């Protein structure tokens, strides 16, 4: 008995289609991996940059800020903060947050008690991040 629309055909399309497009994703990812070194400048990932990323993660900065547009949308984009504000400003800002906050409606940033070493590492990480080729995103310096 031939059927106009069979379940087994629908199933074959599902399995075939899923496999096909997953392979395509793998192939494209393979190409991306070849191209990435030219775009992320990984030769500039020093120990300080790597440590800075760890500091970034250990304090859950992504819980308020965006980095290259990903994260929370509560506080400014930091992918280009090195260009916008400079390293010294970033360090002074992080250091000067009052532990008890500032009363009022202004959004609060916690005092993370970072060491000078950690601050330097963080800035190195943000500087390197700012040099990634992001296809000219964000549209302007305000992020």
């Amino acid at each position, binding site marked *: *008995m*031939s*059927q*106009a*629309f*069979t379940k087994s*055909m*629908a199933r074959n*399309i599902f399995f*075939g*289609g899923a496999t*096909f497009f997953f*392979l*395509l994703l793998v*192939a494209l990812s393979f*190409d991306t991996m*070849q*191209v990435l070194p030219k775009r992320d400048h990984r030769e500039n990932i020093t120990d300080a940059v790597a440590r800075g990323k760890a500091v970034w993660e250990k304090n859950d900065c992504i819980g308020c800020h965006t980095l290259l547009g990903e994260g929370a949308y509560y506080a400014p984009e930091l992918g280009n903060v090195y260009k916008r504000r400079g390293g010294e400003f970033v360090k002074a800002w992080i250091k000067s947050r009052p532990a008890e906050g500032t009363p009022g409606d202004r959004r609060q940033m916690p005092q993370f008690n970072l060491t000078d070493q950690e601050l330097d590492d963080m800035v190195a990480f943000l500087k390197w991040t700012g040099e990634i080729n992001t296809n000219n995103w964000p549209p302007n310096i305000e992020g």
Partner: protein
Amino acid sequence: MNTQSLTIDAHEPGTPPGDLAIWFFIFAELLAFGVFFGSYAFARAHHVELFNQSQQLLNRASGAINALVLITSSYFVVRAVAAIKQGLSRQCANWLGAAIALGGVFIVIKLFEFHAKFSAGISLSTNTFYMFYLSLTIFHFMHVILGMVILAFVMAKARSGGYSIEHHTGVETGASYWHMVDLVWVILFPLVYVIR
């Protein structure tokens, strides 16, 4: 409403040959290719010079030969369907075999073309034209392979007498998919290789 209406015995008049499910898939695929064709055309509008220059470096002859190969292969598949409609399983399988062989020819020619491009250092990131050229042709290339796999299954079943005059939806289903692969190349070839 009669829920059994989708499981009728004979082919419903007015619907395309083969399993209806494959037609949803065919149109979904055509839609994806269509959006890609449109993207190519509009990207070209912004970089006419670049596209015209880069297009000159393509191997137009191999593109045209491949068009002929796929058209002929599609024709063989039509003959395969005609054969099984007369109950000629062996002939059907032979025509399908010939179609698959031509698919293989397409693959080989395409591989030579890709090899030439890759060894010239061209990649997806070379420029917008090559991004599209490689994306479109590789995407289509993978469809040719998938189509050959489908036809191979159909051929194996035909050879073992799995289809008959009354029951040959499977052949028509595979045939429809293969014609879609052909159709895409018929549009892709002039768009990418010829129009300037």
